[in-house]
């Protein structure tokens, strides 16, 4: 499979009141087309900072990100914006949809930004939304959609422009358990089907069953990278009780 992303010894340090804080510490991994991985860890572990560096939103203190052969450190702001627009699909925790655009228009937005022909794109957006069960809600405004429906619109938007890489930052943060499972399952299916590379940042270990690999981060460092969901959970439960405390006992009960 084609290599889509290479994170090479990424480090991000901040200086606050004279003290140096290392948010991400020497993280390296690779991601191939058709592969969906989760980056998990407790709050403040550096997951989102890592995601921001991969997306070219934040410049690493050390290391580099290579996306489909392009070294992001060599690109200027304008080129980085173009790269995000053309080759990355995004979903965020909040502020996901433009409130005054309909579901279909929100999805088409990425095509408009990329200057793609809207006639074909319109049909594509309709198909994509229909495949996500939103065929009846094409003309609904975000305020008229449920949380789960909104997240599915976001998924459609992140895939409509055929990106090489799809990045999802806590996509299930505002969803209840059942809905969270449904959304991530759909997301994973589409990523696999369309042979995209996907990274999902989450602190919810229950989602690991839908991904190919899980990278667990604590204090900015990778402490585990595994494709065995059970192994990850057992390890987390034993060695990082703070994580299980944060997530609650039911997580582990459900997973086991």
């Amino acid at each position, binding site marked *: 499979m084609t290599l889509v992303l290479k994170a090479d010894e990424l480090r991000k340090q901040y200086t606050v009141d004279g003290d140096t804080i290392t948010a991400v510490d020497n993280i390296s991994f690779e991601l191939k087309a058709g592969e969906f991985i989760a980056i998990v860890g407790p709050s403040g572990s550096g997951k989102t900072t890592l995601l921001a560096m991969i997306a070219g939103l934040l410049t690493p203190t050390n290391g580099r990100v290579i996306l489909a052969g392009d070294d992001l450190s060599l690109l200027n702001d304008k080129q980085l*914006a173009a790269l995000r*627009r053309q080759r*990355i699909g995004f979903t965020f925790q909040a*502020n996901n949809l433009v409130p005054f655009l309909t579901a279909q*228009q929100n999805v088409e937005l990425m095509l408009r930004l990329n200057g793609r022909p809207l006639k074909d794109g319109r049909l594509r957006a309709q198909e994509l939304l229909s495949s996500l069960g939103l065929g009846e809600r094409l003309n609904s405004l975000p305020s008229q959609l449920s949380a789960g429906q909104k997240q599915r619109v976001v998924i459609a938007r992140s895939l409509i422009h055929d990106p090489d890489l799809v990045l999802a930052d806590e996509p299930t943060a505002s969803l209840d358990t059942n809905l969270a499972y449904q959304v991530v399952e759909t997301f994973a299916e589409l990523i696999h089907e369309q042979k995209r590379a996907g990274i999902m940042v989450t602190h919810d270990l229950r989602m690991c069953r839908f991904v190919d690999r899980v990278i667990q981060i604590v204090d900015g460092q990778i402490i585990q990278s595994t494709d065995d969901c059970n192994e990850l959970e057992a390890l987390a439960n034993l060695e990082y009780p703070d994580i299980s405390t944060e997530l609650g006992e039911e997580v582990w009960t459900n997973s086991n």
Partner: protein
Amino acid sequence: MEMWRNWGRFLLVSLVVALITLLVVFLAGLAEGLSLSNREFLGKLDGELIVFQEQANLSLPSSQLRNDTKRKISRLSSVGEVGAIGFSSVFVTNDRNEWEEGVSLFGVEPGKPGEPIALEGRQLDSDRAKEAIIGRNVALSTGLMVGDTLVIKSTQAGEEELHSLEIVGISDGQQFFFQPSVFVPLQIWDLIRPTPIVDNGLSSITYNIVNVKMVDSSKEEDLAQLIQQEIQDIEVTDRRTAYEAVPGYQDQQRTFNTQQGFTLLIGILVVGGFFQIQTLQKVGQVGMLKALGTPNLVVSLTTTAQIFVTNSLGVLIGALATVLLASALPSSIPIVFVGRQVMIALVALLFVGPLGGLVSLRYLTKVEPLTALGLSS
């Protein structure tokens, strides 16, 4: 699209801009109207230069020129035509004495600079003809027409005298000193103008100013200097300087300009405030759009277009409302909407939105895409 979905919010701001426009254009129209009432006659003189008595400080009523001044000026080279003009303030009525109206009475030489063009009827016939050309404002306010008799009421040596003149023509607006104007031949004016009880010699003054039309109007300054050098006790100036020297004219204009300036400033702050609040509400959304790869240019252009449309709509509504309001006001309120001041006010109003929106525009371009991830650099 945002404006379409949230039309109520944007329309509200447009209406605020419309009210500001109404106030600014109304003030500008009033300033233009009052300014015209004060200077229209001087501004419309066909001769480029006006000669005053030196000690008169460019005041037309105070200026008293000697009989030979005009003759001396007309002998100079580069001088084309010369016309003497006399001025007094009198009351006029019709032949049945049914009403009375104060007017500026001008004595002009038929066929010479100073005589207005009759848009209706004909020009004055001769120096001694008992005829008058009335300004459009006199015709509008009194209903007099060409062929009617105009009666001038003039106090001469303490007695009220009535002088009947035939109206032979109607000119365009020729107001002066906030009064409409009537033009009669200079010699007739000399006979009918008010005179003091005790003749202190002023009654022998036959005119107040001389209007000079040049052969080559590009040499205005040179000729003004030449006239000034050759003839004693006079002051030569152009039309603009002459009407700007009319007592109260500059103060009045400054007052109106200050009012307009403040209103425009309020407009800038209101529009600026609205778009700034709107921007602050959209920081997260803009951050998300930028994270998706939306260029700053697109964000700026979208906002600029919103500001421009909101503001222009407001200016349009305001301008129409002002015209409607003005048409409903009595004709005695001097409002003119075709003047330079109104044009300047409208152009300034079109810049109110963009100026007000500059701060929010700058703020928008500074929003970091990282905010979409809840981070900040």
